[in-house]
């Protein structure tokens, strides 16, 4: 089997485990709805202001529920020290990274697919933009967020207090994604053309490329025993 099919094998394994346990995804889903509710109460959102804060609410919800889930990325691998078993198999370390990114990305997309429509209803938001552009923005934002988070969760998994360490090391790093994603989502939601968000899309693209490539190089070091 080649590199790609090994990645698929790794992804298959994680998704089957997650499908059985439903531990992570259920928490992510609930949290992604719960956070906006808290925000709705604390921001006292009147109908006029909703338009301004809605994109922010979306991304705060997604980042928070994402972090909650990503903390568990390497939990399966710790149970019986199977990460060690994985590293003994003849597969490039980077395949392990990409497989984890794909798994996390899948879970994020699933969370988004379920919660976003609910948020539109909850905040009674009239969507005026193009769905395709919104999907593009969310895709790029989620990709950048996921690739960095996966890498940093591998990093923090080495420590005993990984669950409290991850948010602290992750948030400063993902600030560009948050800014670009919130801004471009906001523009798309009110129905602007893709030209108006071109520079934000570019920023997201650059971020995605940098933070896929660098972990790709560094991941091997992180996994060293």
């Amino acid at each position: 089997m080649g590199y790609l099919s090994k990645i698929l094998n790794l992804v298959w394994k994680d998704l089957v485990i997650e499908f059985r346990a439903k531990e992570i995804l259920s928490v992510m889903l609930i949290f992604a709805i719960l956070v906006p509710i808290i925000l709705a109460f604390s921001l006292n959102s009147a109908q006029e202001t909703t338009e301004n804060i809605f994109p922010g609410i979306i991304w705060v919800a997604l980042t928070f529920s994402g972090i909650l889930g990503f903390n568990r990325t390497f939990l399966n691998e710790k149970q019986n020290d199977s990460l060690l078993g994985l590293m003994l198999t003849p597969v490039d370390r980077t395949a392990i990274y990409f497989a984890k990114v794909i798994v996390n990305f899948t879970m994020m997309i699933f969370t988004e697919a379920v919660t976003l429509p609910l948020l539109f209803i909850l905040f009674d938001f009239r969507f005026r933009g193009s769905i395709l552009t919104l999907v593009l923005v969310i895709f790029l934002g989620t990709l950048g967020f996921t690739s960095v988070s996966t890498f940093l969760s591998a990093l923090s998994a080495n420590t005993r207090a990984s669950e409290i360490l991850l948010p602290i090391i992750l948030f400063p790093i993902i600030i560009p994604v948050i800014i670009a994603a919130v801004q471009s989502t906001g523009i798309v939601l009110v129905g602007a053309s893709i030209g108006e968000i071109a520079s934000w899309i570019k920023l997201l693209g650059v971020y995605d490329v940098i933070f896929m490539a660098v972990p790709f190089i560094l991941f091997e070091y992180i996994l060293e025993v």
Partner: protein
Amino acid sequence: MLALLTPPSAGEVIIAGQSASAKPLNYRKKIGVISHNTFLYNNLSAYENLLFYGRMYDVPNLKKRINEVISEVGLKYSLNDPVRNFSRGMQQRLSIARAIIHEPEILFLDEPYTGLDQAAVKILNNVLLKLKNNERTILMVTHNFEQALNMSDRLVILVGGRIVHETPGSFLTLESLKDLYLNLVEER
């Protein structure tokens, strides 16, 4: 280090006349490891665990091979049960199956007998014997003198990370091995 998880601080690992660190992927294909950790996924069934690891090792005719190894460790009737429900001994047996699924040329054992029940010990011994008869290399690290003596052709005693004694196993009795070991530790 021999399993190439840690880069050696000095020198290199040479297996069968070839430097192992030069082509780690090829090398990893040839080794199997049994340790006191099972490396298994609790939420997967025995079959899925073997399927997963078999695919990682590019095992040809994987389904047939899974059936072979699973009967070898006597878990044929628990094939589709999740590992979570297995007893410690059963998990260890499955771990043995996992380690030999790709027919490794060299098998590393790190304290393999810790936590094994009698059935598992017997199975492990059979597996090792079979591999030995197939002219495979087996390297076992243990603190159990009796097992060490019974199993091995060559015995190496390490104290403080250095080889302090090397001898063919048949030259020693259990008593003399114990004395020898204690003397060597004391000398340091």
